């Protein structure tokens, strides 16, 4: 395995880590819009309170790693999708501060403002991340000289919107599964119902999306069927999707959540495998695509970065696991809570 392939894999691992970890934060944020009273809203926020910040760092790390390992991809995609990325940034700003601000003033009007800001600040990224992936799978109009400029409205094509809704549904399912772990009684039962509802929508939309992809971007299917990784991810996806409702019905919510995490990982794995070795296909001419070879940093930088990642990420995983264990169990509202 060469360095470029290793970094292709690592970038996708980082994005998958983000989708799994901050994914449930986004889902909880969306579900927050449907909470019934102040107590429930506080439970939503405090369920992710101690961990969301660390989860969001996965996005920053993925962005930084993309910059370091594949600078032309980082530069081309983020400038080409300027307004979409700005919208995500605005939304993430609102989400971050809502939790901190909401509990500061004990007035219903004040809380309502930050409830909406928290909910929409989670909803918008949950959709746009999907829209962005949809557009990448569809191919972006990258010219032969590597320039890209897509008007914002062109990103909102039916295929990308379908993937956007798919990602929203996926994050809602994931967030509901997480909340079922963190809550009790009536709220927990309702979250179990949300999980199953979102699961059904997810299955239907995923089938539709796969079918649509076959027509929109047939090149994605060209060589994957002979790739063993594709089949591993495919089987993992199948198994975890089937297991979600089983665990959910049995009331084993931690397992539901893990299955939902596995679903996300497998789905991203499938996406990455079918894109490989391209990072961003060009819709004008596949030969103009940004690939792991024509858009990478030098072997020296990739090596240095690999060393940094191999030292740093295991440490991150160890203390993150410790912190998750510390905050395991049901949400209890205390004086430190939001």
């Amino acid at each position, binding site marked *: 395995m060469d360095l470029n392939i290793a970094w292709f894999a690592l970038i996708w691992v980082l994005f998958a880590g983000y989708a799994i970890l901050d994914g449930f934060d986004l889902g909880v944020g969306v579900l927050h819009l449907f909470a019934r009273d102040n107590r429930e809203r506080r439970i939503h926020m405090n369920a992710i309170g101690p961990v969301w910040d660390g989860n969001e*760092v996965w996005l920053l790390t993925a962005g930084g790693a993309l910059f370091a390992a594949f600078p032309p991809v980082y*530069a081309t995609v983020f400038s080409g999708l300027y307004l979409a990325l700005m919208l995500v940034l605005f939304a993430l700003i609102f989400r971050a*501060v809502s939790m901190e*601000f909401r509990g500061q003033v004990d007035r219903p009007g004040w809380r309502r403002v930050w409830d909406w800001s928290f909910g929409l600040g989670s909803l918008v990224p949950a959709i746009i991340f999907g829209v962005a992936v949809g557009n990448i799978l569809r191919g972006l109009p990258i010219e032969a000289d590597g320039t890209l400029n897509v008007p914002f409205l062109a990103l909102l094509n039916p295929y990308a919107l379908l993937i956007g809704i798919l990602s929203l549904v996926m994050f809602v399912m994931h967030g509901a599964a997480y909340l079922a772990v963190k809550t009790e009684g009536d709220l927990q039962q309702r979250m179990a119902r949300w999980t199953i509802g979102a699961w059904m929508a997810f299955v239907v939309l995923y089938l539709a999306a796969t079918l649509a992809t076959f027509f929109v971007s047939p090149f994605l299917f060209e060589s994957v069927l002979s790739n063993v990784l594709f089949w591993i991810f495919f089987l993992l996806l199948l198994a975890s999707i089937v297991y979600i409702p089983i665990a959910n019905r049995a009331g084993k919510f931690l397992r539901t959540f893990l299955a939902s995490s596995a679903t996300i990982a497998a789905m991203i794995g499938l996406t990455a495998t079918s894109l490989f070795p391209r990072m961003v296909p060009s819709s004008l001419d596949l030969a103009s695509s940004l690939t792991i070879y024509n858009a990478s940093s030098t072997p*020296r930088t990739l090596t240095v970065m690999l060393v940094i990642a191999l030292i740093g*990420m295991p440490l991150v995983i160890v*203390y993150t696991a410790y912190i998750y264990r510390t905050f395991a169990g049901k949400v209890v509202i205390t004086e430190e809570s939001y």
Partner: protein
Amino acid sequence: MNLDPLFLSRLQFALTIGFHFLFPPLTIGLAWLLVFIEWRGWRHGDEDCIRAGKFFGKILGLTFAVGVATGIVMEFQFGTNWAEYSKYVGDIFGAPLAAEAIFAFFLESAFLGLYLFGRGKVSKGMHWFSSLMVAFGSMLSAFWIIVANSWQQTPAGYEIRNGRAELTDFWAAVFNPSTADRFLHTFVGCLIAGAFLMAGVSAYLVLKNRGAQVGRKTLKMSLIFGLIVSVLALFPTGDHHAKQVARTQPEKFAAIEGLVHGQTRAPLAIFGIPSGEPPRLSLKVGIPAVLSWMAFGDADAYVPGIEDLREAGHPTPPFVITFVSFHTMVGLGTFFIVSTALGVFLLPRNKLYETRWYLKLLLWVIPLPLIACQLGWIVAEVGRQPWVVYRLLKTEDAHSTNVTGGEVLFSIIMFGLIYLMLGVLYVFILVRNVKHGPELLPAKEAR
């Protein structure tokens, strides 16, 4: 209307980095002070310190949240607005950003959750350790960001190949000629900001007799700490940083010191009115030979001036902004030493807590170290112009050519509105928290 995306992108970068850079200094400074306070609370069972930890911990959490929210923008803005820059330097510049996320940002974010929410859930020792990791992580964050920025100031460990800067020596790029001096000076500046915030808030608590016992302790700690770091900001860190600029970026140094014509026995300007093109310093009052001595340790050393550097083909940075920012920063730095020294002088005579005008002064000067940090950053960044990477890439060649002026205008307006709101709310909530005082917070752990 013809909207210039280059100008607007520069404006947006200045706005977003300037606003973001208000929060990390407070976070870093407060976090290190809290390491000390939490240690006393844990090891000595000091109930005032436990209360102080909870009280300032809340302020840390608030500051950190706004810092994170505005910091995400920075990670992506190189790609969105400075695509040409990103392609040119990505092989080198991306690594420190990624290292910052992996080594530092994960650490501070994860442990901040444990610090803020874990009281009573983990052992007291572990809780103290989490405050240490927050402080250490935030310092490490600053280090990697300064590494990246210092490479723009004094690039090293690279070769220009394939139309871009390619890494040849990682450690030479990381510890380029300006990294160490710039990191230490910036870090100390952050500590001053934290010390003044804590001192000002504590002074308020003493003045209003609201949790005054806690306030006295934190006032004393933050003033002593503040004096030490204020002195360190001038010497050795400020002095070394200036010497490094003289060595490595003569154009910036000439602009900072207002030296128009190069000379031996160059005088140190202690007063002067700068004016723009051509750069001139009128009504100049200088001490002969001191600049030569300070810059190169030799009173007879030759210090190149703006004009001779121009003749050699090296353009001058915007003179007035660089000169004024630098001298205002130095003036503020002097004020920090004098004001904290006065407080420490009043301490053993037990007059500190009764000298009401002094306590009021401390309250009103809370923002000054932040202004000094901003000015320092302006000197660093404006003083490097017209280069985005010193003598390698001009700012005008670095922006995204595929982003339109209208798009950037839209995002500037949005950032402007959102940041204005964040700034107002931050101050509003900070003031509310301070007025609430630390008294109501229980010192014993509620399990």
